């Protein structure tokens, strides 16, 4: 009994440590004070001014850029990664091992190495850095995760189904659409969500590939803000909203995963 109490309180303390900073942000999103940590009475003002825009035009455009880049990168890497996974699954063991190994490089590489290497690529090619370079960079570090979430679905599915469809006269395209994709869909969806969250959370790679033409994502905006000393108060409600959204997304994913196992 005592053991049990001790063990839950140890985990409890760790969780309090992990959640304390986030709770502070959420609590102080309901007050107007400019400086984080001052309580000047309960108010929704920060939430309303976040959505009104106008004054915080740069914040809302940064948010929009983040979402657009995240969606495009996630979409592109889901397609590229799913195709790659189907191909990799059908490769001979030797080449398969090689492609899988190169696939893990972007995952194991620290952000800053990926960032610098892509920066050098873009400057060597003489490309102007902006939307395109950021999206290409995001596809680079997102796709490996899609490959890793689609491959297990392929391993689990019955490959005879695809062959059977072909034997029964389906074109390869039709067999892909009717047989393969429905089987792979759960893995593709997990991969898409993972890619999207990785993209919107990224800071280092974005900073190195975004150029200096005034394009900002949420991360680079926060970074610039933090370096100036003060954090825009509207970032508090925004973080609170993002946290709750991610919470909901994670619950949905886990429910899906639980259902899949049944």
């Amino acid at each position, binding site marked *: 009994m005592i053991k049990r109490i001790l*063990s839950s309180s*140890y*985990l409890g303390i*760790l969780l309090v*440590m*992990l959640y*304390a*900073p*986030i709770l*502070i*942000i959420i609590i102080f999103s309901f007050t107007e004070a400019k400086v*984080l940590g001052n309580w000047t009475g309960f108010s929704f003002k920060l939430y309303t001014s976040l959505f009104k825009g106008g004054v915080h035009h740069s914040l809302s455009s940064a948010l929009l850029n983040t979402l657009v880049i995240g969606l495009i990168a996630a979409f592109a890497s889901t397609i*590229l990664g799913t*195709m790659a996974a*189907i*191909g990799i*699954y059908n*490769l001979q063991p030797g*080449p398969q091992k090689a*492609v899988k190994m*190169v696939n*893990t*490089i*972007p*995952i*194991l*590489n*620290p*952000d*800053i*190495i*990926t960032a*610098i*290497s892509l*920066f*050098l*690529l873009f400057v*060597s090619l003489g490309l102007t850095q902006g939307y395109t370079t950021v999206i290409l*960079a995001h*596809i*680079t570090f997102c*796709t490996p*995760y899609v*490959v*890793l979430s689609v491959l297990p679905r392929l391993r689990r599915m019955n490959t005879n189904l695809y062959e059977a469809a072909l034997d029964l006269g389906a074109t*390869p395209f039709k067999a892909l659409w009717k047989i393969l994709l429905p089987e792979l869909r759960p893995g593709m969806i997990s991969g898409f*969500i993972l890619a999207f969250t990785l993209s*919107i*959370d990224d*800071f*280092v790679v974005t900073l*190195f590939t975004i150029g200096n033409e005034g394009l900002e994502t949420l991360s680079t905006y*926060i970074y610039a803000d933090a370096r100036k000393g003060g954090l825009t108060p509207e*970032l508090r409600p925004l*973080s609170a909203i*993002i946290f709750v959204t*991610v919470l909901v997304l*994670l619950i949905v994913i*886990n429910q899906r*995963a639980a259902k899949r196992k049944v």
Partner: protein
Amino acid sequence: MYRKIRSFVGRRRNWTIPYVLFLAFFVIVPLALIVVFAFSNNEGGFSFTNFRKFWMQPEAMNTFIYSVGVAIVTTFICLILGYPAAYLMSRMEPKRAKLMVILFILPMWVNFLIRTLATVALFDFLKLPLGEGALYFGMVYNFLPFMIYPIYNILQKTDQNLIEAAQDLGANPRQVFLKTTLPLSTPGISSGILMVFMPVISTFAIAELLTINNIKLFGTTLQENIYNGMWNYGAALSLVMLLLIGITSLINSDGSTKAAEEGNLI
């Protein structure tokens, strides 16, 4: 011609080709460029100038050594705090354990800059000074889940029969832990160490925010050089970091394949 194209596309292993080309262009070539830039001088000729500079100028070298130190200490603290947590979670009934895993992973999905700034706010709130203490708190706070998850994963899969066998053969709880549980969990420990050590060594921006610009880590040195147009020197410093990381992951190659798979946290 059309037929040829169709049979080419129809062979599913050919579907790897776009991705292989993509990887070659956006992963292999950029890494090769780091090497090329590192061994070039400003005129583009082959030279060792950048490495000589790294060796001769104590500033970058000191930052590098200090960063390795911070990474080692952070990894150690994460291991000491994380192992008991993972162990306790592995002994829970599966449903509760699953909830715990989600609770530990969830904070990682808040933008790490916001999390770091929240840590700064927490220290202000508790009237604690920012500095080295805050730096370690922030690092452990950011990377602890990466240690807990792989260790929990391996402990949870440990064959209970082996532990029972040890007990039946007369081992006391301490011996059971030291001789059976701990050795069986080493793969989890090594991938946890890798998943904490490698990101910490390359962090950028966390240290400045937590120490009011008093402490600089190697990641920032890299960024400053690239930003100030010293591409060759920056590339050389990146290569130094890449070597360190290559050596670390070669030492436990088991850990690195596992770490890559577990990068897939959800």
